[in-house]
C-alpha cells in the first residue's frame, strides 16, 4: 500500500468555527491521513463528528484554521478563492452531495446542470460538443439521453443522484468526495447507485472519499476506513481490519450498534457502551499510533502496547 501514490495528504488539519469566540466549535481538531490514488477511503462517524466538515475543508469550501492539505503534492490549503489555481484544483476534485433534492437547481435543465462545469472550465468549443458530452455522461450514469432537456423535479431520488454524479464527472476529475451520497435513497436504489459509483471508479481510475454513517455500506465500498468522533480520528485501517478487528473502544461501540438484517444476530446482540472520558484520562498527549502495519488507533504512548497485545490476540485466534 505504501508503494501507492498519495493523492491527498491531510496534515494536522484543524477547522474551527468562530475561533477565539465563546461559541468556538472545534469541528475538526488536528487530524492527519493520506488517501492513495485509486482507492476508496471511507470516513464514518456520527452526526457532529466532523466528517462532513473534513470533506468540505479538503475541497476548500472552508478555509482551514490550520494544517495543510496536499493534493498531488501541492498545498491547496492556502490558495485563494477565485484564483487560477483554485479553478484548476476544482477541476481535479469534485463533490457529490447528500440530498439529491436540494443539490440540483430546480430552474435549470438537466443538461445545463451537467454542463455547468464544462462551461466554467471552457472544456467544450460549441453547443454540439456540449450536447454530445452531456449525452455521453447521461449514458455513463444510466439515464436516458433524451432526458437532457427535462428539469430535476421530473426525476426520482435515485435518478437525481445519478444526475449529481454526472455533474461531478463532467470535468473529468481525479478525486471525488461523496458526502452521504446514498443516505437519502431507498434501499433498493442505494445498491444501484453504489454499484454505479464502483463501475465508474474502475473505468476512470477515480479516487473516492466516501463519507457516510451507514457502516455496512461504507465497509462494502471502502478499501480503507477512518472512524471519526468529536473532530478526531479514533481509528484508521483497512476496511477488513477496522470492521473485523476493531481496537479502539469507540469503534467497538459504534459497530455494536449497527442493526443487522438478521433476527438471530439481533437477538444475540450485545451493545457496547462507550465512555468518552477515557480520552481524557492520563496526562500523556493522544494521537494516532500505528499498532500493526496499516492499522492506527488514537492513543497515548503507553497504551500502544495494550492495543498491540489485543491486535496480536485477535490475529492468533
Amino acid at each position, binding site marked *: 500500500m505504501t508503494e501507492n501514490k498519495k493523492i491527498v495528504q491531510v496534515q494536522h488539519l484543524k477547522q474551527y468555527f468562530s475561533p477565539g469566540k465563546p461559541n468556538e466549535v472545534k469541528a475538526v481538531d488536528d487530524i492527519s491521513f493520506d488517501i492513495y490514488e485509486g482507492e476508496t477511503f471511507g470516513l464514518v462517524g456520527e452526526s457532529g463528528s466532523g466528517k462532513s466538515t473534513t470533506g468540505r475543508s479538503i475541497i476548500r469550501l472552508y478555509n482551514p484554521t490550520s494544517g495543510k492539505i496536499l493534493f498531488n503534492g501541492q498545498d491547496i490549503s492556502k490558495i485563494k478563492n477565485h484564483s487560477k489555481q483554485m479553478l484548476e484544483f476544482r477541476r481535479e476534485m469534485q463533490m457529490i452531495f447528500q440530498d439529491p433534492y436540494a443539490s440540483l437547481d430546480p430552474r435549470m435543465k438537466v443538461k445545463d446542470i451537467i454542463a455547468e462545469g464544462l462551461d466554467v472550465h471552457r472544456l467544450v468549443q460549441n453547443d454540439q460538443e456540449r450536447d454530445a458530452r452531456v449525452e455521453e455522461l447521461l449514458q455513463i450514469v444510466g439515464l436516458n439521453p433524451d432526458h437532457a432537456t427535462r428539469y430535476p423535479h421530473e426525476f426520482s431520488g435515485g435518478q437525481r443522484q445519478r444526475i449529481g454524479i454526472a455533474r461531478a464527472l463532467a470535468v473529468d476529475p481525479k478525486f471525488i468526495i461523496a458526502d452521504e451520497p446514498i443516505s437519502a435513497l431507498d434501499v433498493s436504489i442505494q445498491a444501484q447507485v453504489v454499484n454505479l459509483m464502483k463501475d465508474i471508479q474502475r473505468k476512470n481510475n477515480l479516487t473516492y472519499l466516501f463519507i457516510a*454513517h451507514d457502516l*455496512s*455500506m461504507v465497509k462494502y465500498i471502502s478499501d480503507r476506513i477512518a472512524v471519526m468522533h468529536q473532530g478526531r480520528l479514533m481509528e484508521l485501517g483497512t476496511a477488513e481490519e477496522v470492521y473485523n478487528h476493531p481496537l479502539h473502544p469507540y469503534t467497538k461501540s459504534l459497530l455494536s*450498534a449497527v*442493526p443487522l438484517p438478521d433476527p438471530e444476530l439481533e437477538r444475540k446482540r450485545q451493545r457496547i457502551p462507550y465512555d468518552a472520558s477515557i480520552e481524557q484520562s492520563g496526562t500523556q498527549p493522544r494521537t494516532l499510533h500505528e499498532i500493526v502495519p496499516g492499522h492506527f488507533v488514537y492513543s497515548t504512548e503507553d497504551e500502544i502496547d495494550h492495543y498491540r497485545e489485543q491486535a496480536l490476540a485477535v490475529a492468533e485466534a
Partner: protein
Amino acid sequence: MAHEILEVKNLKINFQTYAGTVQAIRDVSFNLKKGETLAIVGESGSGKSVTTRSIMGLLAPNAQVVSGEIKYKGQDLLKESEKQMDDHRGNDIAMIFQDPMTSLDPTMTIGKQVAEPLLVHGKISKEKALKRAQEVLELVGIPNAAARMKDYPHQFSGGQRQRIVIAIAIVNYPEILIADEPTTALDVTVQAQIIDLMRELQEKLETSIIFITHDLGVVAGIADRVAVMYAGKIIEYGTVDDIFYKPQHPYTWGLLSSMPTLDIGSGKLASIPGTPPDLLDPPKGDAFAPRNPYAMKIDTEAQPPFFKVSPTHYAATWLLHPDAPKVEPPAAIKKRSEEYDRLMKAGQIENLAGGSLN
C-alpha cells in the same frame, strides 16, 4: 395466540391530484395482536405511511377511502365521527413521528407538551398531569427530568427529543403505538438506544406497536411479525424469521440481497433494477413484474393472490402457484435459509413463534 386489537380489512385509498387519481393503497389487510410489534417495510411511495395515517384518521383532505374497514376492538374507525376519533387519538392510539426536530412545538416547554394529551383528554388536573409528565419523562430516560420540565425542545439533542416524542405518545398508556420511521433521523448509537427503550416500554405497558421503516436491520431487531409493502399492497407477511430466513417473494429477495452484510466481500451488490410503478396508472398484473427477473407471463396479466407458505407466512407471488416452475432464489437468500436450517438443527435457535414455523 393473543387476541387481535386492530384489524384492517380490504383497505383501498385513492388520492385526487392534478395529474389524476393515485391509487396509494390497493387492497391492504392485516391485523395487530395485543402486545406484539408488527413492522411494515417498504420503499417510499409503497403506502406504508398512508396506511398508518388512515388508522389515526390523519389522511390529507384529497384522500378518499374507497373501501375497507379498520376495526379497533370491533369498532370501525372509518365510520367514527371526528369527535370520536379525537377521543382515540393520543389516548387509545398514539403516534411517534419520524423527525423529532419538527414534531415538537418549539415555543412550548417539554413538560407542558408531555402533559398536553392528559389535559386534552380531560382525565386529571393540571397539577397531576405535570407530575405524571415528569414520571413519564423519567421513564423514557431523560436525565434530571424534574429540572428539565421547563426547558424547550431546542435545549435537547436529537435522541433526547425523540425520547420526549415517545413520552408524549405513551403518557396516556395507549393500546396501540404507531411509530413512523422513529429512528431514521438518528445516529446508529442513538437509534440503538431508542429501539431498546421502545422494547422496554412495550414489555412494561403491553402496548401493541406498528413500526414503519425501510431499514431491514432495524426490523430484524424489533419486530415479531413483518409485512412487506410494494406499490400499495402487502406482498408478503410472516414472522420475523419467516421473512428474513425463508422469504418467498422476489421483491423481498431483492430487498434482502441489496443490503450489504458485514461479511460481504467486494463483489457486486445485488440491486433491484428499475423503479417502482406509477400508481396513477398501476399495472394490471403483479406491480413488481417489470423489475422481477423471475417474472412469468401471468405476472403481467393477473395479480397474484396470497399463497400460504406456513400458518404464519403468506406471500403474493405466482411463483408459489402449484403449476409454477421451481426457481432458484438468489445465492444470498439460499445462504440465509441454509444457515437458519443449520442453526435450527443444532438447536441454537429458540423458536419464538411457538412452533408455528415449518
